[in-house]
């Protein structure tokens, strides 16, 4: 069988199984095994043991469960609610202050959890009732929260970027450095958009928060500062080369335990550990499946042949980027983000590198595309999460409200394409510092 047929077989098996509803991780494993067997018979199957072992003992990946644990500890201790309330008090003079407040809260919590759905859930559970009470336009608010949740995919420490790093051997510290400015820029773009909409349409933003006494404001600061300090500490430790991402994550866990002292019962701590193990298992399961797909592609020579084929077609750099964006936006309608990235990377990464894209820069673009998939229907998971907090809002309304945010994400990709320095500037400076 030629490479084209094997390539088609692989993706046909994946597509059929995924669409039918097979568990993503297992669909990838099965497709990989089928193509390995078809190409080189049963003797190559002996590589299974080493694929399994090597894909899961990767030191870079040890940061994944630790960062998830750090986020879970902060979530289960209920800090996110207090944080949001304090934030809204401080931003009370800004018209529609709860909305920019929720974007700031999302950015910070996204940084601690690295998870977009957990962030949307944590901030949304507090923000939705509060905004409803203050007479905010709920579809607009829900769309904002769904979009805000996705910021964690880009703002370091991001689980998505760690997986990209382990799959493509790109240093995770560089990816973390590259994600910071685009992540903050995107958060800033969200806030500017909210302020502009609010200025033209005061119905969107509800009534102002009543004046708050100074003592409450200061008390709120006590809630805000430790969490922000924890995030800054973890990220700085990585950027400055003081600790590897894994070490920084374990220090982050220590910090999270300190920050949430007095709020964390043994039961809650176990719950945090349990969900860290379950989430890690899910993520690594899909990663393992992707390793089988990757092995099948390399073993059959299909990914090399495909790269050569694309290169031979002399596609321009920007044309290729647009094509990749279209592929992701279409795929994002069916497959959730991490799965989508892990399935496509074995094919798209060599093509992108051959086209002359910087591997670090490309990782950031992919992360933005995954954020985009998270708020576009029908699989836009953040949309479902937020709707869970306010059943009066129709799904279609949230989708429409989230669309401008999706537009801002595409704008960010365009900015990254024309000014790669947005992502790469900090990478050069941190690597010099190290």
């Amino acid at each position: 069988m030629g490479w084209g047929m094997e390539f088609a077989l692989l993706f046909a098996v994946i597509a059929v199984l995924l669409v039918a509803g097979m568990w993503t991780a297992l669909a990838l494993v099965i497709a990989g095994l089928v193509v390995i067997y078809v190409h080189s018979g049963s003797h190559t199957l002996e590589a299974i043991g080493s694929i399994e072992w090597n894909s899961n003992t990767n030191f870079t990946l040890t940061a994944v469960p630790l960062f998830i644990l750090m986020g879970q500890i902060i979530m289960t201790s209920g800090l996110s609610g207090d944080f949001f309330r304090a934030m809204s008090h401080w931003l009370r003079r800004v018209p529609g202050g709860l909305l920019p407040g929720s974007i700031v809260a999302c950015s910070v919590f996204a940084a601690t959890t690295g998870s977009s759905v957990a962030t949307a859930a944590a901030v949304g559970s507090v923000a939705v009732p509060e905004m409803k009470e203050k007479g905010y336009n709920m579809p607009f608010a829900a769309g904002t929260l769904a979009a805000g949740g996705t910021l964690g995919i880009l703002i370091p420490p991001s689980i998505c970027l760690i997986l990209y790093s382990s799959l493509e051997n790109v240093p995770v510290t560089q990816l973390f450095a590259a994600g910071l400015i685009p992540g903050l820029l995107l958060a800033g773009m969200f806030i500017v958009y909210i302020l502009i909409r609010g200025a033209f349409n005061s119905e969107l933003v509800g009534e102002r928060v009543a004046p708050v006494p100074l003592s409450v404001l200061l008390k709120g600061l006590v809630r805000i500062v430790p969490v922000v300090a924890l995030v800054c500490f973890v990220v700085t430790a990585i950027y400055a080369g003081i600790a590897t991402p894994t070490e920084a994550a374990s220090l982050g866990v220590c910090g999270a335990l300190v920050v949430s002292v007095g709020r964390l019962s043994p039961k809650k701590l176990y719950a945090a550990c349990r969900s860290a193990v379950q989430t890690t298992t899910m993520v690594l399961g899909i990663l393992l499946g992707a390793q089988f797909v990757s092995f099948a592609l390399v073993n059959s020579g299909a990914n090399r042949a495909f790269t050569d084929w694309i290169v031979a077609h002399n596609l321009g750099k920007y044309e290729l980027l647009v094509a990749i964006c279209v592929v992701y936006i279409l795929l994002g309608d069916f497959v959730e983000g991490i799965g989508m990235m892990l399935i496509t990377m074995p094919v798209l990464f060599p093509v992108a590198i051959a086209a002359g894209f910087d591997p670090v820069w490309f990782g950031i673009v992919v992360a933005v595309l995954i954020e985009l998939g998270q708020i576009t229907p029908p699989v836009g998971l953040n949309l479902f999460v937020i709707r869970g907090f306010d059943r009066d809002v129709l799904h279609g309304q949230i989708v429409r409200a989230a669309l401008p945010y999706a537009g801002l994400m595409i704008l960010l990709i365009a900015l990254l394409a024309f000014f790669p320095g947005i992502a790469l500037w900090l990478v050069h400076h941190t690597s010099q510092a190290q």
Partner: protein
Amino acid sequence: MLAFVAFIGGVVALAVMFGYTALGVLGRYTGWFAVLSSDEIGGYALAALFFLGLPYSFRRNHFVRVGVVYSRLRPSYRAAMDVAFCILALAAVILLAYYSWQFILQSYRFHLLSIGVVQVHLWIPQVAMGVGISLFAFELFASLLRVLAFGEPLGGEEGAVV
């Protein structure tokens, strides 16, 4: 029960990983003690966490699936699909389990050691992989029987990974 015990093993592996890396960085900066091969031990703990966590996470429906078609089907059709999925998955996972034990046996026979400062017999951490995958196969088999016996789909929804 076994799946849950294995899962607790996964939680312990998480604690070990946390403790070892935290001590490693603490030791390096204080100079009071040195933790050797913390990266390697972390890697082994990660493998244990993952493989031992597999069976229980599967039972608790933490495996994501695409719901475009599946979630729109009637329960009886979903149950039929789950039977097919379980059989397919079981075949694949038995293959994985078989080759995992082959791989572990090889490490054992040739006395393979880890490359780092602390030389560990590789088969020791690898056993967690064999046990985890084998229990996962059992769990799939049990799920298959459950669907066949009660005619109810396994459920599980479109989830988010992160």
